């Protein structure tokens, strides 16, 4: 477990918004705020949070589609922001993305075959025959037939398109795959097929996943460890079962209690959920305006992510002393 693939230290990404053409006052949005996170080789790390909490920005920072405002991301001990062009290309070979929307993430003017083949050409891997062989072999693995190779994206259903996107990500045999909401655009019955496929591929190729989703059921099914993000910060990080059985952070508790369960017998009593994911003051804890157990200190100081028990991290002044609402 000790083999760290990605090590993120004090990572920050700030975006500056100007509120209008004529106004000078600018607002700075900390999309990713002081994030420390490690991804171990061979695990699936689930990243969960509501829209706008910075999940996708984090994914873009790890793939270096964005540069951080401050902080480090190390891949096998090397800072990825110190990479030159050659090293960056090699890095991107090892870290691949699967996107949310299988409609907009595939070029409509290319056949499935050339979409999946393109990374091989960019990275100058193999010759014509070898590429063809590799693409067809991978297509079979992700559940596409060789007759479908020459079809175009519009001829495929949503689930099949997502299979193409997955094949494109895996063709270079990466070590880390970042799946950014890979199933949220799909219907339930198709979603299950894709989740099973991702699990199989992880085993076959020995992959490491960073699995991003807003769906707690999906995250629970896929992950070994789970990180919960709220307004740019990681508020809780723990093993899968620990998060679901004994959530420590009040936000995790809120998320879990808000998720609908498929059991009409266990209809939830309306939990007190107040407010929205929005920080109203610059000082103190991000979550204070929604927290039911707010202390005076929460208004002044931002809690830091600390290890509360073995391998359980939580960023809360109450340090996990809050009892789950019954």
């Amino acid at each position: 477990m000790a083999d760290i693939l990605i090590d993120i230290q004090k990572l920050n990404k700030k975006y500056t918004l100007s509120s209008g053409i004529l106004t000078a006052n600018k607002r700075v949005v900390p999309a990713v705020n002081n994030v420390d996170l490690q991804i171990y080789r061979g695990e699936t790390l689930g990243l969960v949070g509501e829209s706008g909490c910075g999940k996708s920005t984090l994914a873009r920072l790890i793939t270096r589609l964005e540069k951080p405002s401050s902080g480090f991301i190390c891949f096998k001990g090397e800072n990825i922001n110190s990479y030159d062009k050659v090293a960056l290309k090699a890095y991107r070979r090892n870290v691949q993305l699967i996107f949310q929307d299988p409609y907009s993430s595939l070029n409509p003017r290319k056949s499935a075959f050339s979409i999946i083949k393109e990374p091989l050409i960019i990275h100058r891997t193999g010759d014509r025959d070898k590429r063809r062989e590799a693409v067809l072999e991978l297509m079979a693995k992700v559940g596409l037939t060789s007759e479908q190779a020459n079809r175009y994206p519009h001829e495929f259903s949503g689930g099949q398109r997502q299979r193409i996107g997955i094949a494109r990500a895996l063709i270079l045999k990466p070590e880390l795959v970042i799946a950014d909401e890979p199933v949220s655009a799909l219907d339930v019955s198709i979603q299950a097929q894709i989740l099973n496929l991702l699990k199989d591929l992880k085993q076959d190729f020995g992959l490491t996943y960073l699995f991003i989703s807003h769906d707690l059921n999906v995250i629970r099914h896929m992950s070994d460890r789970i990180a919960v993000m709220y307004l740019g910060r990681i508020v809780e990080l723990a093993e899968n079962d620990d998060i679901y059985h004994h959530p420590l952070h009040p936000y995790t508790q809120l998320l879990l209690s808000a998720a609908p369960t498929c059991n009409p017998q266990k209809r939830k009593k309306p939990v007190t959920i107040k407010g929205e994911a929005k920080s109203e003051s610059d000082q103190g804890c991000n979550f204070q305006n929604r927290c039911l157990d707010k202390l005076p200190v929460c208004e002044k100081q931002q809690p830091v992510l600390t290890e509360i028990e073995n391998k359980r991290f939580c960023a809360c002044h109450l340090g996990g002393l809050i009892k789950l609402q019954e």
Partner: protein
Amino acid sequence: MSPLLQIKELITVFDTNRGRIKAVDGVSLSLQAGETLGIVGESGCGKTMLALSIMRLIPTNGSIVGGTIFFQGQDLLKLSSAEIRAKRGSEIAMVFQEPMTSLNPVFRVGEQIAEAIRLHQKLSAQDARALSIAQLREVGIPEPERRAQDYPHQLSGGMRQRVMIAMAMSCHPQLLLADEPTTALDVTIQAQILDLIVDLKKKNNMAVILITHDLGVVAQAAQRVAVMYAGKIVENSEVAEIFANPLHPYTKGLIDSIPAKCDDSGDGRQKYLQTIPGSVPSLYDLAAGCRFQQRCPYADGQCKEQEPALAEIAPDHFIACWKAPDNQKNKSAS
């Protein structure tokens, strides 16, 4: 008691350049006053077109070619367009999925609610405005006087959906059609909006048709469930019955394909999810017989030839499947 809404053999078709398709194909269902019916199905199964048919708001290339929709004893399909317009928004209201595109971006939200009110009630502009502020308060918007002055883009997704609900509720409809009201929202906001709909329903003894693809939402908020597949209702029963004892293989597949439930005690996670093989058939070339046959583990000769009709197989439990009795036997045997 005669039902509030009774739909019989409704057929809605669309003429496209690839031919005519039946988006809603012989749907029958009924709804009592104050009841919540969940309609579940995958994208393209016709659930939205069913709701739009009730409102008679289907797009121009579509038409309703058969069936009846009785609402309070009156066939909505026989009404003139002026008569149906009087019902829309006052007796039957609708909330859409995307609150950003269904509000007008250039008017203040308070004015938009007041407009809906004045369309159906003879009120002065001032009274309508006071009423719209009262409505905003009713749906839990803080500082409604100030918020009424906001434009849609100044509100968050959850707030906009509350505005939509306030507008739908402003004339106290007997029937609310909610088409994926929480799909665009985050979980915590979704829970708030569902609570709000359930509350308002109780307070006003309003019937609700809740259209969603999320079985969890149905389990939380509905009393009855109708499962749709490729334009037809394949199963219809009480919510507890459907989840405890799903009889149609499609419903069963849908419930089984949900990843580990959050409330599982112990390590209830299986390695693999049950899946339904294949995907939804295209409405352009439907094979004869049952629409689910290609994906069904029980399909045989009869399923390929004849289309099953919705039949009551257990008390108050309707399904459209030839194999259901066997299916049930297998279950009790194992």
